């Protein structure tokens, strides 16, 4: 069920009406039923996967928590009888048991994700290797449709399991309440990847009707629909046309296409998350923010602190830190420091851990070499920037005026980062890595710059009016982002007199209604991040 479908609006209306009329202690039950209905409509067989993740994670977390309780009780009971060493040895033994529960549950859930998401990719690569060595056998695999949201809810469940293991959240005793955390319908489409400690109190709490909260939620949704339908879905046609045939559309077309795709991706993903957070807000449930005006970043490092924040923090907390503090990594670092010297040796864990994270990030995004290379390309750029930092410092010392306090330099740094993101994003949409490099090289060799102004862009499936609408909408998005730097735009509008508020919000509603990309020739499309 698309967020942009009539069915979804009907579903949402009924859910909102029931949510605020039934006794409040049953609100979470309604959300659970609604979420499973939503998920069932997306494909009844998908329920098997989400149920498997929910039940295995809930059970493993309970066993871990029970073990922690037993350990504490035992140590309390034998406080005087046991020596320091005996206590340490007992704790180590119990920790091993808990680690086995974590490892078993992780393996099972990652195996499920791996099988449905990556088996086709692995088989295709094996066939390629077999053919390269003259083999005639063709391995086959009945491909399984990727269950909606599996990458998102699997990560949420894993995060919860590790949090229980680390004792940062208590284990949920009720499987149905835990099921709501995993399946809450707005986040199933494309995240954000919520944490149990942040999300569960809102999901399971009681929420009286508050017109202001509901209105704010609906306003956020409207802003999301504006981005998705007026910008993302409109420019999609031109992006698809260019990327669909990079031989015909090379050079300046590629530059135009990758900039347009980067705008589309922003409008699509942040718009979708605005809708998700808006729905939750209208239900009285706070949700983690996923973006912090990412295209205002002045470096790639800063960009990754501001883009898809919940995914990045997930990888940081549940992969990067555990790998970097693991015993074997400490051993590697120690060896590197003694052999390569203090300065280089210290960098080894940074390289290795960030390589692991970026490889995993690439793989998480999709079963294709393009995503893997995209992840590693990000890693290379980030590591290069780290190593070049002393050089940057020298440059800024030599030219003290040229730093981020200087507005023209700041604009230059933002523009440079935006272009870099455009280049990296090209890996997302081209059909192969070779194709990406060929397309990039063509920007410098094709010499077809006049296509940018001779009317050729009007042959990409968009009219002048489409470009005009998308352009004005982009200016509105930019203006809103600029105003947001000094606080919530909705709060600022709320402080205005009623006629101004009326014109602004109904104006936005009319823009979405009249200028959204639907109707003849358009189909509201699924969100880009839904395929992950």
């Amino acid at each position, binding site marked *: 069920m698309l967020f942009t479908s009539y069915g979804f609006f009907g579903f949402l209306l009924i859910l909102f009406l029931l949510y605020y009329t039934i006794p409040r202690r049953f609100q979470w039950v309604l959300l659970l039923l609604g979420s499973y209905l939503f998920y069932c409509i997306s494909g009844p067989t998908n329920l098997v996967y989400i149920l498997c993740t929910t039940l295995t994670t809930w059970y493993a977390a309970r066993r871990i928590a029970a073990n922690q309780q037993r350990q504490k009780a035992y140590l309390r009971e034998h406080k005087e009888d046991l020596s320091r060493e005996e206590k340490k040895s007992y704790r180590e033994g119990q920790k091993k048991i808990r680690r086995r529960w974590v490892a078993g549950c992780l393996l099972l859930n990652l195996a499920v994700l791996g099988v449905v998401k990556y088996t086709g990719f692995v088989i295709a690569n094996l066939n390629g290797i077999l053919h390269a060595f003259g083999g005639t056998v063709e391995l086959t695999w009945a491909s399984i449709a990727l269950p909606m949201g599996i990458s998102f809810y699997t990560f949420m469940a894993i995060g919860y399991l590790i949090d229980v293991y680390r004792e940062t959240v208590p284990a949920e005793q009720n499987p149905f309440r835990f099921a709501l955390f995993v399946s809450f319908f707005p986040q199933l489409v494309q995240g954000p990847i919520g944490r149990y400690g942040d999300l569960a109190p809102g999901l399971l709490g009681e929420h009286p009707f508050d017109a202001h909260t509901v209105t704010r939620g609906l306003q956020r949704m409207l802003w999301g629909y504006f981005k998705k339908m007026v910008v993302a879905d409109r420019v999609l046609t031109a992006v698809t046309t260019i990327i669909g045939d990079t031989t015909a559309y090379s050079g300046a077309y590629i530059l135009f296409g990758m900039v347009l795709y980067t705008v589309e991706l922003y409008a699509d993903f942040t718009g979708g998350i605005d809708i998700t957070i808006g729905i939750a807000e209208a239900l009285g449930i706070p949700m983690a923010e996923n973006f912090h005006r990412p295209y205002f970043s002045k470096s790639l490092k800063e960009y990754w602190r501001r883009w898809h924040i919940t995914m990045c923090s997930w990888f940081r907390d549940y992969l990067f830190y*555990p790998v970097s503090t693991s015993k074997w990594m400490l051993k590697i670092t120690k060896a590197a420091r003694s052999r390569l010297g203090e300065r280089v040796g210290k960098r080894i864990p940074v390289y290795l851990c*960030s390589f692991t994270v970026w490889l995993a990030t690439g793989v998480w995004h999709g079963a294709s070499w393009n995503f893997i290379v995209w992840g590693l390309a990000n890693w290379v750029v980030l590591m290069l920037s780290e190593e070049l930092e002393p050089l940057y410092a020298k440059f800024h010392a030599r030219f003290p005026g040229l730093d981020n306090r200087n507005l023209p330099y700041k604009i230059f740094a933002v523009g440079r980062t935006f272009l870099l993101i455009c280049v990296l994003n090209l890996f997302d949409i081209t059909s192969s890595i070779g194709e990406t490099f060929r397309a990039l090289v063509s920007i410098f060799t094709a010499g077809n710059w006049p296509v940018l102004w001779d009317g050729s862009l009007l042959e990409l499936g968009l009219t002048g009016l489409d470009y005009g609408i998308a352009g004005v909408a982009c200016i509105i998005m930019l203006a809103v982002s600029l105003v947001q730097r000094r606080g919530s735009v909705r709060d600022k509008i709320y402080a205005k007199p009623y006629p101004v508020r009326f014109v602004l919000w109904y104006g936005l509603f009319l823009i979405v209604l009249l200028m959204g990309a639907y109707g003849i020739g358009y189909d509201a499309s699924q969100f880009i991040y839904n395929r992950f």
Partner: protein
Amino acid sequence: MEELLSILNDRHPDIDFTTREHLIDEAVLDSMDIVSMVQEIAETFDVTITARDIKPENFNSAKALYALIQRLQDEE
């Protein structure tokens, strides 16, 4: 504390770690900094820092980090 300040200053010589209270919140220290310091802290103070210990409240100031180190030393 002097040893800890030396490790921190080695990474960011331009920062006065005796006064800063929001090293993580203000993005003075990022995950790369933390990873490159963890081993050195572990060796210097003979403690084991786990992923569970890496949270903003433990790394927001030199004082908080030193308190974590002392806590870990007591536990071990």
